[in-house]
């Protein structure tokens, strides 16, 4: 029998039982769509978290922990490793640093960085340059907000109280020093751990302003000194750390492994990314498993429909066999029918799933914002549901395979129908 005749034969029968076939296709569609949408939540959450990590510059960085600043020979060794661009020694200064400008004062965090190494990195400044001597500093993008006078403090207190009464929070963005800070001289007092008092003020010139932080909520009021500061203040207590900058994300793991072999205490977000991938792989397998149960329930519908089709057509099968249809042809015709039901159900399920996914991503941020917080989540790049091609292929494959398997037994039963018994059946 020609393939197009087989096709026509099957379609003719499906048309004849339109209602029953439609209901079965709907059941198959719902099962498959449930599977896709459920798994898409796993893909969506993973995508959101991964994007968050990948968008962070730190993804190509390796952090090296230690009690002391990395020795020069260590720096030289690490810099010699393939794909390592820069080794940057930094140190956080213990305690807060006081700074004053005119009638304004403020307390901020401060750190020291190897400016020679920092210079090799892409600029982290929004304006100005890096310090070239011990009396020059760069400050955070929001540094001005930390410099407050009496009037600012009173205003800040008032606004904070009002915001608290209204059940919200005031970030102090309207107060502080508003004029340009570049090339301004500020007096800075460092904390002396030995005397437990602040040292005498020293004048520093602001030569650069750091870039605005990528997170809206983060206020960067920090101060960065050149490492030559330690020459003037050798007793200053600092917490050193080293950041190793690798040329690309793919090369982070090999460098990391090599450093671990050399007993360096290192950490990278790429490790976290791999753990995240493993976690989500297991999570998604779990979701696909649950979704597959829905597909299996739908398969009972297909099994019933096909069993009914075989029972109803017993006499017809008998006639076909009597005039020379082979058992394999009979089996193929019924399998084609269940495959069609599976194909239609899967095809519709894919369309419906994309629509549901699109709607979920468009509506859920508003719903979640409304239900759990006052913050508008729609401005964040959160993906609640994501349907990659791999999911479509896996879910479609499962759905189609289940549909074919559901039709297999009825199709085999059809081939076992005896011609003589079948021809005795009345219409």
């Amino acid at each position, binding site marked *: 029998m020609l393939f197009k005749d087989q096709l026509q034969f099957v379609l003719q029968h499906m048309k004849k039982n339109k209602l029953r076939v439609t209901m079965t296709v709907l059941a198959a569609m719902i099962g498959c769509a449930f599977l896709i949408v459920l798994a898409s939540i796993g893909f969506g959450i993973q995508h959101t978290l991964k994007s968050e990590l990948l968008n962070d510059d730190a993804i190509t960085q390796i952090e090296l922990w230690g009690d002391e600043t990395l020795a020069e020979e260590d720096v030289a060794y690490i810099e010699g490793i393939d794909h390592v661009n820069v080794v940057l020694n930094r140190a956080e200064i213990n305690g807060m640093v006081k700074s004053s400008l005119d009638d304004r004062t403020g307390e901020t965090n401060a750190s020291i960085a190897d400016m020679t190494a920092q210079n090799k990195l892409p600029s982290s400044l929004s304006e100005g340059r890096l310090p070239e001597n011990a009396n020059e500093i760069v400050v955070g993008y929001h540094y001005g907000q930390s410099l407050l006078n009496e009037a600012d403090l009173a205003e800040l207190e008032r606004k904070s109280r009002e915001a608290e009464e209204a059940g919200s929070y005031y970030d102090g963005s309207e107060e502080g020093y508003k004029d340009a800070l570049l090339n301004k001289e500020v007096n800075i007092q460092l904390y002396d751990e030995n005397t437990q008092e602040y040292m005498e003020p020293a004048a520093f010139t602001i030569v650069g302003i750091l870039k605005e932080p990528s997170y809206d909520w983060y206020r960067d009021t920090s101060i960065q000194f050149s490492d030559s500061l330690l020459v003037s203040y050798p007793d200053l207590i600092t917490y050193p750390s080293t950041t190793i900058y690798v040329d690309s994300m793919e090369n982070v793991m090999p460098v990391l492994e090599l450093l671990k072999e050399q007993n360096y205490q290192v950490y990278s977000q790429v490790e976290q990314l791999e753990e995240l991938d493993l976690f989500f792989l297991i999570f998604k397998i779990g979701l696909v498993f649950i979704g597959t149960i829905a597909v299996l329930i739908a398969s009972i519908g297909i099994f019933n429909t096909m069993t009914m089709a075989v029972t109803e057509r017993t006499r017809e099968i008998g006639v076909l066999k009597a005039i020379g249809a082979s*058992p394999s042809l009979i089996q193929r015709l019924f399998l084609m029918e269940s495959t069609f039901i599976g194909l239609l159900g899967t095809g519709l399920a894919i369309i419906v799933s994309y629509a549901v996914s699109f709607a979920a991503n468009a509506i859920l941020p508003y719903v979640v914002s409304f239900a759990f917080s006052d913050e508008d989540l729609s401005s964040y790049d959160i993906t609640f549901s994501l349907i990659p091609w791999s999911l479509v292929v896996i879910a479609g494959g499962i759905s189609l395979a289940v549909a074919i398997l559901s039709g297999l037994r009825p199709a085999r039963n059809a081939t076992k129908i005896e011609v003589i018994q079948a021809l005795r059946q009345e219409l």
Partner: protein
Amino acid sequence: MITVDALHHTFSIGKKGHEKKVEVLKGISFHIERGEIIAIVGKSGSGKSTLLQIIAGFMKPDSGSILVNNTEIAGYNEKQSAAFRLDNFGFIFQNFQLLPAQTVFENIELPLKLKGVNRDLRAQKVTELLNKVGLTEVADHYPNELSGGQQQRVSIARAMITNPPIILADEPTGSLDSQTEQEILALIRKLNKEENLTFVIITHDEEVATISDRQFRMTDGVLVGGMSRVI
């Protein structure tokens, strides 16, 4: 053409464990030449339908041989039997066995579809045959819109569409009135003469047997006769 030799067949009836063996065919042997009309006449339960079903390959005999054009078909499996039927046999049934959801045209072209004949050639052959059996005007009708005689003509056309050398007919006029019976018998005789087709007709009706070249009589699983018809 067809040589049947020492064909035996037994049915088991009754509940499992208490089955009773009934021998329905007790060493049947006969030979049929090409172009003959053979009538196998017998009462109900004589075993004549079982004989036809075994020749057609719907069931396997317990023992014996069936040679069709020197091909032994008694040992064929289901797949081989189906392929052999498609090429060598046409079937006419008592209750026509047409597919109700298919038109007259579609019912007749069904064996051609099974053989994988293309659409144009099918249309040409079916049209020729519709003309030959006088059904051109009802080609697009469904079986339930036709009279018994017309339905049996469709059945005959379907049996002939692949030009099989042998037509097996099981009570071909059993569901028809006497006038229609005469028409169908005349058509069978005409096709036998014009197309040189071999007909094996199973019937309990002596009237039907009168159109045959030779008659066999089946009694309790034993076949007797085979004498030429006296014209």
